[in-house]
Every structure is written in structure tokens, then in C-alpha cells.
């Protein structure tokens, strides 16, 4: 029985022999001084030049290089031998092709066969490859089982903007069905002979030389570049001979997987050599194998999609139907799945479609988005889910509010009349999630369920997931994570301010939680949220770490040196201008007052929110005063260094009501105090410092007996 090693070695020997024959043949007609070159390239015979560093300019040099090629075809039965032999096979193929160009600048005629691609063509292809406008390229080798299948495959790639190169029988297959080919339509027939594949290897290699500035002869550098940056994949049709196997080995060594329907004498190598017996599935298998992501440019729905529709209100009279989570079962859910469980761009509607509902009806609707991706984390699910609101609102004639199982969606009559149906919600969500979160989402499918019984069942499942997420949020503490994040989104207003976002301390604007910061970082690695490894603890009690100080120093451009995350007295975190709340120490009660932005009146400090804000903002450390988010009030880390939330003596009533539940729970847990918020004064009690102390004394507020704040 043959082995993969055996087939590669025999194939490369065969190619070498053919190269030798070709050389012998041209040597009969030309002298060693005869020039050898492909037209319009500065990279000589690019495969040979890149791999060996040798510049071939004439027939004599071409003959000499054969020895080097032979030296690359090592035979130690190690994986390495397969790779070097594979690459050497491509070099041998290039020798055969070069022979064709001796004394003939255009042996292929470009009608339709292309042969060598010029440097200009490489650049023309390379730029959109780098930008992602061309997400990758595919090389077909051989003939598809039928002409129709060949055409369907090529068209499918073409519709996804994947550049197509063809070698062998497939060229005539698509030609017979009238397909136009050429560089301009991004479908290029290279040649009928297998060795014409060297022209596309040359393209990939020149991309590394031109775009990656890799030096010729730097074999590893080339491989690294093609592996990391050139999204190519090979589709080889059965029957696959030894020479094709050898070429495939070369492709794999450059990082390009080979997908084939050959099963005889073929071996599966994960991520590299993939057997897909169903030729019709070549495209999906290939894209997944190489991790090629298709840019989504338009959303296929019958109405407009734009930010301008975000603020539309659909009145009852204009409404075709609504999904109202307060009356019937509705929900929205993002689930992380294995890649094998998700079929990309599948949109399924379960239950009646919109045209089966009476005008004005209240329907049950569940919108479930399943995503898969190598970098996907379940922590991102709520981040995506929260975006549904903005996405769906941008559809003309659709109004969306709420999240999870408390949503309301209205669709206008006009939009319905225009042909808007359930699957179009799927199209919008698919397109937006794939394009905005392309870094982490490889595949995405959407299911819209309108069958009330099914939605009801799904709601139970969803509620379990929501609960789990909430538990996870509650269980996230500063102690049990390994990294915090910076956030410098507002530095344009507040140049030296840096937020350090931790699980128990969200950004002071209230809009960036630790999970948000984490997701922002994953999605935009060079963006405003950067990882701060929690290392070099100085004092965990007041929240000082070396790494935090380093980050603050770095991202404030040196304006700040030291920050303690849990103290408002010692090096407190700075504030930008956009904090939700500000707290400041109230010396007579030994506590702090907190005031939120919405509160216009004075505090017992004799200052209003805006006065306190003007003293605290701008990224300057102001001991005794600090901006923060509303959710931070109930955190166990809220001025932990000074004794925690029991220092809170005054808050506006509205704010107090808002945070009461969580704050009371924290006070109960930390100090065993019941209904702590009853002890906290507000503007209905007093905004005078003296009266405040009287009130607190009356209530037995714990702050009065704590250590002096200063």
C-alpha cells in the first residue's frame, strides 16, 4: 500500500524528471547564454528566487539550479521532507514553465490561458487581498465530476469575491458552459498542464516579497508570511495523481490547505489535507479550512437600512403587527455553538410567517442567533444581544425596544407591504453580526420562531441562560479574574484620564463594564480598552498594583503615576468629565455624599453636582472626591480602603431608590445592617451639614463611629 510519503516523493521525482526533459529539449535549440525570464517581473523565477535566493537569468543558470532543486528533495521520511520536496516540486514545475518562455514572450496567448502573472497583476491582486476586498484565492486542479458542478463552484467563489485560479480540465468545463474568464473577472485559467500551477505559487511568493518585504532566500520568512497573510486554498479533484499530491505538499507547507474528493490512497491531515467527498460542499469546507471570512457589503431586505431610521416611532394605527414581550412570550438570545453546529448564513423561520397574521395582532417571537468562532467567548453573547436594539431599529419601519424576554417590536404596514418578512430580521442580524464582530464570529445562523408553543418552551431555556449570565456577573470579582482593562475612550475630552475597569468597578461613565471592556479589546485589539494583567500587588486592600500603575502612567502619557482603585483618599482614580455620579467626603459626619448628574440641587457639602464636577474632572487626582458609575455604589470595592459603603451618608432620593436593592444587599452582607438606605439622608431630609449629622445620629448611622477619614 502506498504511503503519503511515498506519493509525495514519487510525484516530486516525476516533476523533476519532466523538468530535466524540458531543459534537455530547449538546450537543443538554445545556448546557455540564452536569456531566461518571465515577462514584467523584477523577481526572476520567483519560486526559485525566493526559496534559494538565486537569480536565474539565462539557460545556463537554469540548468545549474537543478542540482539545488534535487538537494531539496530530501528523503528522511519526516514531515519536513514532505514539505521541502513539495516546494521543490513547485520549483521544478517553474523550470518547465520557464522553458516555455525561452524565445517566446507569451506562450499561452492569454486567450483564455494566462500562464505567468506579471508583477503589476500581483500588485493588483495583492492590494485587495490585504484589505480583505478579496478575502482569499482558490486554486482548482483537475476536472470536476460534471461541467455544471464546476461552474457552480467557480460562480460560488466568484460571488464571494474569492479569486479563482484554474489548472487542468476545469478550464474547458466552465468554458463549455459559456463562462467568461480573465484577470478582470477574477477567474484565471493558468494552463492545462499541472506544472502551470507554479505560476500561482509564484503569485503567493511574490506577495510575500512585495507586501511582506521578505528577503529572497528566507524560506521560513516566506512560509510565515504566506501562512499568516495569504488566504489561499487548493481544490483538487479526483483522480489525484502523485505529482498533484507532491504539489499539494508544497501548498500545505506554505499554509494553504488542500481540499479534495479523492478517497483512494488519500490521508486526512487535520487543517491541511481535507477529504470532502461532496464536491458541492467544497466552497464551505475550503473557506472554513483556511479561515476565510467573507465581507458583507449589503443587506438583502426589501426596505432601507440606515441610522436615519433609528428614531422612528411606529404608532398603533400604522402598525402591521407587534411582538410584545410584556403580553406574550418573546425573546432574543445569542448562543455560542461549535463550528459544526452552525451553518453559516442559514436563516430558518419556525412557525407562521408575517403574512399569516391579522393586521394589528400581537405575535410571539423568538430571535435566536447561533454563532461559532475560534475566538468566540460566551461572555460576548450579551454584548451582541444588546446590539440587536440598534440593528433592528435601523430597519425602515421597524421599532424595537427592550432586551432579553422583555422586548417589543413593531413592524409598520408600509414595511410589511414592501415585502418584509421574518427571514429579513435574520438577514439584518446575520449581516450586522458578521460584519461588526468578524474578529470573533466565523459562522452565524439565525432562527426566527413565531410558533407560540415553541417560543414558550424556548423562553424557559432562555431564562436559564439569562440567570446563568447574571450569576456569572455576580460571581465575577476583582479577586477571581487575572486581568483588568483600561478604557481611554474619553481622552479627547480629558487628556490624562484613564479608567481602570474591573469586574467590581465599571467605568465611571457607567457605560463600560468589565465584560464590555473585554469584548471591546477582543474586537478592536488596538483600541481604547487594553489588558492590564493583575500583577505586582502592592496593597490589595486599597487596590494598588504595579501593573495598574504602569498602565495608568503609560496611557496618561506620564501625567499620572499611581492610582489606588479602592480608595478615595489616597491617590484616587481620576475622573474625566462624563461620570454618572460624584462622591465627596463630608467631614462632619465622617462619611461621603454621592450626587448624580441629574440632581440639580445642592448637597450638604454646600456644592452642587456641577461644582463638584468642576473640581474633580479633567483627569486630575483630587483626594476626597471621585467620579464613578451608578453601579459602583453597591460594589464591595466602593471606597473599600476607607471602610466601604457604610461611609455613604447622603444621596439624592431618586438615586437612592435606584440603587437601594443592591446597596442594601451589600450592606447586609458586609456589616449585617438591614435596610441600610433608610439610614442615608437625601434632599427631602436635608441639604445642610448640621442637620445631616443630627439625622445620622438619630438613625445610628455607622459612619459616625468609624475612624476619622482624615
Amino acid at each position: 500500500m502506498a504511503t503519503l510519503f511515498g506519493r509525495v516523493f514519487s510525484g516530486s521525482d516525476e516533476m523533476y524528471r519532466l523538468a530535466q526533459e524540458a531543459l534537455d529539449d530547449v538546450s537543443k535549440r538554445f545556448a546557455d547564454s540564452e536569456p531566461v525570464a518571465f515577462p514584467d517581473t523584477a523577481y526572476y523565477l520567483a519560486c526559485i528566487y525566493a526559496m534559494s535566493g538565486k537569480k536565474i537569468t539565462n539557460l545556463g543558470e537554469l540548468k545549474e539550479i537543478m542540482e539545488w532543486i534535487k538537494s531539496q528533495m530530501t528523503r528522511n521520511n519526516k514531515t519536513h521532507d514532505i514539505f521541502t520536496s513539495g516546494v521543490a516540486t513547485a520549483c521544478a514545475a517553474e523550470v518547465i514553465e520557464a522553458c516555455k518562455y525561452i524565445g517566446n514572450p507569451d506562450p499561452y496567448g492569454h486567450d483564455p490561458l494566462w500562464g505567468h502573472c506579471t508583477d503589476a497583476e500581483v500588485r493588483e491582486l495583492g492590494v485587495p487581498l490585504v484589505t480583505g476586498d478579496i478575502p482569499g484565492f482558490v486554486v482548482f486542479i483537475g476536472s470536476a465530476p460534471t461541467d455544471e458542478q464546476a461552474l457552480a463552484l467557480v460562480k460560488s467563489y466568484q460571488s464571494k469575491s474569492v479569486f479563482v485560479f484554474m489548472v487542468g480540465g476545469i478550464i474547458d468545463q466552465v468554458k463549455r458552459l459559456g463562462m467568461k474568464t480573465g484577470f478582470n473577472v477574477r477567474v484565471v485559467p493558468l494552463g492545462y498542464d499541472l506544472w502551470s500551477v507554479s505560476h500561482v505559487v509564484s503569485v503567493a511568493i511574490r506577495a510575500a516579497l512585495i507586501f511582506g518585504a521578505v528577503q529572497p532566500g528566507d524560506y521560513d520568512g516566506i512560509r510565515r508570511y504566506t501562512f499568516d497573510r495569504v488566504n489561499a486554498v487548493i481544490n483538487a479533484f479526483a483522480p489525484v495523481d502523485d505529482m498533484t499530491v507532491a504539489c499539494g505538499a508544497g501548498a500545505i507547507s506554505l499554509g494553504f490547505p488542500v481540499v479534495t474528493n479523492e478517497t483512494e490512497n488519500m490521508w486526512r491531515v487535520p487543517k491541511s489535507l481535507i477529504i470532502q467527498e461532496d464536491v458541492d460542499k467544497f466552497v464551505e469546507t475550503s473557506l472554513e479550512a483556511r479561515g476565510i471570512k467573507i465581507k458583507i457589503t449589503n443587506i438583502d431586505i426589501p426596505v432601507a437600512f440606515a441610522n436615519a431610521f433609528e428614531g422612528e416611532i411606529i404608532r398603533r394605527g400604522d402598525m402591521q403587527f407587534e411582538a410584545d414581550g410584556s403580553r406574550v412570550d418573546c425573546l432574543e438570545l445569542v448562543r455560542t455553538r461549535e463550528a459544526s453546529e452552525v451553518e453559516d448564513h442559514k436563516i430558518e423561520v419556525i412557525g407562521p410567517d408575517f403574512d399569516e397574521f391579522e393586521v394589528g395582532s400581537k405575535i410571539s417571537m423568538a430571535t435566536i442567533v447561533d454563532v461559532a468562532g475560534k475566538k468566540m467567548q460566551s461572555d460576548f453573547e450579551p454584548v451582541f444581544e444588546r446590539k440587536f436594539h440598534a440593528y433592528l431599529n435601523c430597519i425602515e419601519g421597524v421599532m424595537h425596544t427592550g432586551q432579553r424576554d422583555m422586548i417589543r417590536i413593531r413592524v409598520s404596514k408600509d414595511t410589511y407591504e414592501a415585502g418584509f418578512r421574518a427571514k429579513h430580521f435574520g438577514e439584518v442580524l446575520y449581516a450586522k453580526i458578521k460584519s461588526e464582530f468578524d474578529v470573533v464570529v466565523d459562522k452565524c445562523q439565525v432562527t426566527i420562531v413565531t410558533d407560540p408553543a415553541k417560543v414558550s418552551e424556548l423562553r424557559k431555556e432562555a431564562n436559564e441562560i439569562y440567570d446563568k449570565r447574571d450569576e456569572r456577573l455576580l460571581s465575577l470579582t476583582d479577586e477571581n479574574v487575572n486581568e483588568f482593562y483600561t478604557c481611554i475612550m474619553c481622552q479627547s475630552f480629558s487628556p490624562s484620564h484613564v479608567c481602570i475597569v474591573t469586574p467590581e468597578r465599571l467605568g465611571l461613565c457607567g457605560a463600560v463594564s468589565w465584560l464590555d471592556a473585554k469584548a471591546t479589546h477582543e474586537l478592536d485589539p488596538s483600541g481604547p480598552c487594553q489588558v492590564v494583567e493583575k500583577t505586582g500587588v502592592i496593597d490589595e486592600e486599597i487596590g494598588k498594583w504595579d501593573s495598574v500603575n504602569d498602565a495608568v502612567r503609560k496611557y496618561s502619557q506620564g501625567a499620572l503615576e499611581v492610582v489606588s482603585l479602592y480608595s478615595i483618599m489616597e491617590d484616587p482614580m481620576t475622573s474625566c468629565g462624563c461620570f454618572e455620579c460624584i462622591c465627596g467626603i463630608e467631614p462632619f459626619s465622617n462619611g461621603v455624599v454621592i450626587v448624580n448628574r441629574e440632581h440639580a440641587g445642592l448637597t450638604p457639602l454646600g456644592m452642587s453636582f456641577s461644582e463638584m464636577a468642576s473640581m474633580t474632572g479633567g483627569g486630575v487626582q483630587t483626594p476626597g472626591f471621585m467620579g464613578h458609575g451608578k453601579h459602583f455604589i453597591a460594589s464591595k470595592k466602593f471606597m473599600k480602603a476607607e471602610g466601604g459603603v457604610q461611609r455613604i451618608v447622603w444621596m439624592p432620593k431618586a438615586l437612592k431608590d435606584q440603587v437601594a436593592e443592591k446597596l442594601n444587599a451589600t450592606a447586609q452582607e458586609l456589616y449585617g445592617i438591614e435596610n441600610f438606605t433608610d439610614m442615608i439622608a437625601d434632599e427631602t431630609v436635608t441639604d445642610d451639614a448640621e442637620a445631616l449629622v443630627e439625622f445620622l445620629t438619630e438613625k445610628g448611622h455607622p459612619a459616625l463611629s468609624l475612624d476619622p477619614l482624615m
Partner: protein
Amino acid sequence: MPFKNKPQTFSAAIKPVELGTGDKAITIGGENVLPLYSFDAPIENAPKVGVEISDTMLETAPARLKEFYAGCETMADMAKKAAELPGVSFICLHFESADPNGADTSADDCVAAAKAVSEAVDLPLVIMGCKNNEKDSELFNKVSDALQGKNILVLAAKEETYKAVGASAGLAFNQKVGAESSVDINLAKQLNVLMTQLGVKQDSIVMNVGNAAAGYGFEYVVSTMERVRLAALGQNDTTLQMPIMTPVAAETWGVKEAIASEADMPEWGDVEERGVDMEVVTATAVLAAGSDAVILRHPESIATVSKLISELM
């Protein structure tokens, strides 16, 4: 006690970037002191002044500017004339007419004009587009191809276009690439990082961190440039150590101080003098804030600003 002079030199420096080829090639950047502080340490490469030649500017040009270019039929004619101005180190071709919402001059026509200029003068070339992302990407790609080997600078790649422009101008054709962000140090930094990740070499990147005319939110420009410089030199932030080039003329010649007619604003006096002073005041301020090169339009502005620079070196 005598005065203790403490020169403020930094161990970090701005990365020098070379533009153009041959005798007339220029280098911008390289300094390790704050802008124009030549008394702290010598500034090897003095800030440079370039002349802007826009393909639409003569339509609205004031009298003396029009007179200066009298008889010029093409951008190449204008470039030849402009290249003789003392103090000019490079030429900036500004293809405003390429705007698809305007005259929509084709990229190929622009490239032909640029090619003609490069044959007519030997000063380094800077290419500015029309602010339409798609059109500029096409124009920058084609002009980088046509002028291979001339070491031109395309101004500029933006967040939306950096891949296309960086890949073509910076990688495929080995030209210099501008990185344009809008008056925010973190946006500037992020774009530099992205361009570098794309593979564009650091010494091929010149920043345009945004500009405004004096009086028009110019404080953001000053603070952005000053912070970029302090981060680059003081914090040794290598992602911000690229030199800065600021297209001043493109901003200043559009504000009402520079264009309101004398009939409309009799007490304001000569419109051309107003335009020149707006250009000179803005250019001086961006140089003082951290620009290594400015692009100006009026010969009188160029004379004054280049003289000021040489006085300060």
C-alpha cells in the same frame, strides 16, 4: 545664585522619513527636542515648507496668486513655477477636482497630471486627494504605481482606507504613506499601530493628525500635536514617533476671513492679505505645536514661514 539653564533634550527622537530622490530628496523628523527648541539641541532636519498646487485653486485665487501662476496651463507648468520659490522643499499636488460630487476628474487623468509634474520638476512630491474615500483609494493606488521609484508621499490613509492605501502605496509600490486622523492622540496612535500591523514600515509613515484654521477649534489641533510630541519624546512611545506633516492651506483658504470679499467686509481690508495672514498664523502655530512640515499655497506665506524657520534654526 546664577540661572540654572536646564535644556530639555530627550533620549527618544522622532523617526526621520525621507521623501523624494536624488539631490532634492528631503528628510523630515529626527529631532529629540520639543518643536523649534533648537537652543536645547541642534535640530538636524529643519521643518520643511511645501507648496500646494490644487487643480481647482486658480478658479477662486486672489489676484496676486493668480498673477504668480499667470500663463500656466497645466499643473506641471504651475509646479515648475512653484519649484523656483525660495524656501520650497516639496510640491503637494491636491486633486480636489477628483471629487465624484464635483468635477469628478478621473483617477487616470490625475495620474497623468502627476506624472507630468514629476517629469517637470525634481522636488519630492506629495499627493492629496479629494476626501472621497473610494476615489482617493483608487487615485493613491494608481499614482503610487505610476510614480514608482519617486518616493512620493500620499496624503493620506485614514481609518476607513488605511488597508487599501497602506497596502498599495506603502507595500506594493514602496512609497511613503500619510496617516490621517482627526485631532485625537489615541486615534492617531491607533492608526499608526494598524498601519504598522499591516506591514507598512515605521519609516514610511508620516502623520497628519488633523488641522483647523486659527480660530476654528484650533486648540484641539495644538493640544493633539503637543501631546503626540510629549508622548513620542517624553514617554518614548514608538507608535507616535512618526513626523507630522500638516496641510495648512487646504484649511485656511476656505474660511470666511480668507474669502469674504472686500465689498461684503469693507472694514476688513485687502482679501488677499487676509488670506496670507490666516495661512501664516496657522502655519506658524502648527509648527510651534509639533509639525515637521507644512503645506502652504501663497508665495508670500511661503516666503515668510520659510524665513521664520531658518531664523529659528
